[in-house]
């Protein structure tokens, strides 16, 4: 067990217990962990996206190693950059399996405009980047959702009502009764999302049935969501128990005691002042 891992375990336990301390009340430990989290996650995603998007996919397509030749003007610029930071621009071009696509200067320009929009004078620079994002989303998402959400579900709704071994009624597995329930439920659920007709009379009854089916579906995903949350809490406690073992120098036990003592002392000190009992108690 290297020192790095033990130190890591102590840091992990401190941050875990600091976040959990929010359950007691919004206290300095939680504020520290919250702010460290805000800082770390901004830096984490900036590094991750730079090294998995900008460097390989943008620079990798502007100066690919496969078409490197030192005397072309374009690669002279590259060598200048290489002198600047050899980590980002390694010797002899970037080898990420791309060939040269100078059209990628367009997203590069839109990206730089996005950065320049930090200054309020140039804040409209960001509009072109936003326009591209919205345009792409409109096209790709429209096709994808129409394909899987609409056509795909229509195909799924064409239920089987006749066929070899299909029983009329069976709770588990395929049966004519179950298929009728799904078909009626889908059509009634669709009717609920009908806006241009008042939900009254016979149509009102259909939409009422529709919202009932929707609510059962929400109930199912509610049940699964609670299940998922409990599993994640189990996962955290399993880690904390693991880090309380001797090879991590009982990290969890020491930090837990230290926190309880400090928070207890803090609460004891504030007992005099009439600070409202933590706002969460309301």
């Amino acid at each position, binding site marked *: 067990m290297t020192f790095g891992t033990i130190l890591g375990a102590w840091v992990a336990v401190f941050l875990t217990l600091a976040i959990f301390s929010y359950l007691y009340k919004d206290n300095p430990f939680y504020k520290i962990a919250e702010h460290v989290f*805000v800082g770390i996650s901004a830096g984490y995603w900036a590094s991750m996206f730079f090294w998995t998007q900008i460097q390989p996919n943008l620079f990798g397509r502007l100066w690919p190693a496969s078409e490197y030749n030192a005397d072309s003007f374009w690669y002279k610029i590259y060598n200048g950059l290489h002198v600047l930071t050899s980590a980002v621009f390694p010797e002899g071009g970037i080898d990420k399996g791309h060939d040269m696509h100078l059209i990628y200067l367009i997203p590069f320009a839109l990206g730089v405009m996005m950065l320049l929009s930090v200054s309020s004078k140039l804040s409209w620079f960001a509009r072109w980047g936003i326009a591209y994002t*919205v345009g792409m989303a409109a096209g790709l998402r429209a096709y994808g959702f129409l394909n899987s959400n609409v056509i795909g579900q229509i195909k799924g709704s064409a239920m089987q009502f006749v066929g070899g071994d299909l029983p009329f009624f069976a709770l588990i597995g395929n049966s004519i009764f179950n298929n009728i329930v*799904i078909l009626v439920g889908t059509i009634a659920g669709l009717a609920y999302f009908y806006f241009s007709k008042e939900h009254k009379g016979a149509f009102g009854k259909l939409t009422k049935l529709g919202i009932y089916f929707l609510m*059962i579906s929400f109930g199912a995903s509610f049940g699964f969501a609670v299940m998922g949350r409990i599993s994640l809490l189990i996962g955290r406690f399993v880690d904390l128990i693991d880090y309380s073992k001797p090879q991590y120098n009982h990290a969890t036990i020491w930090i837990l005691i230290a926190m309880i003592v400090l928070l207890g002392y803090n609460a004891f000190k504030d007992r005099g002042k009439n600070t409202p009992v933590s706002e969460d108690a309301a």
Partner: protein
Amino acid sequence: MILKRHIPILIVTVIGLLTLFGWFIEQPTIQAFVDDDATQWYDILASFAIILGAMNLLKMQGRKVIKQQEGWGYSLFAIGGFIFSILAGFVIKGSESVAWGTHVTSKGTLFKWMFEFMFTPLSATMFALLAFFVASASYRAFRIRNFEATLLLVAGIIIMLGRVPIGSYISSWFVMYILVLLIGIAVNVKFGNKMITFSSVLTGLLIVTVAGMLTGWPIDQPGIFYLPIIQEWIYYNPNVAGARAIMIGIGLGIFATSIRYILGIEKSYIGE
């Protein structure tokens, strides 16, 4: 004016039409753009935007420290956290055998150390907090305000109990007794006459007990009252019908909204 308004609208329409109808054109460059480059450009743009977001965060937290606003001490932790993660991402690799670029996704680097011992516990614990919030919300917020909410909570409870081992311990006869009591309450609310309620509950209990004795109380018979079976039926049938209706609705909503952008009817993204 042209630069601020017309060109963005033109970009949306051109890129929208290209990425929507590009799926049908068998021309290699258009196909390559729709299949790969369109999302690739977006990922590059999103990466620049994240750097812009990080700069904005530094600007906000930095201003808080310089102006000594309330809670500026914590902003130091935010800036410290940010600097540490940028160091791990761009300056200190922590292990020579790994090349720059692959160090963000491979073992033994300082970035991996930060990921395993700082980023993972922070985000996993934040997620785990939800278990406590779900518990307190189930006591304080999840109310049976109307019949729809009742359906939601009853389906949720059946799924929660039916899908875990303890669910298969609850005998279908126990569920039937509970059902008889619930029917009793419903009858009481409907007719409000003590006699009818009492007699209906009594007959219900009698039927269940007699049937139980005859069949020897098998824990999972009849299936229709056995939690794991009910849960599976709800899960495969009404749940799928509801999910399908919602998915078709959402798919249409997104398609209609996208068409409004491409045709330039909706221009809110540039503040119209």
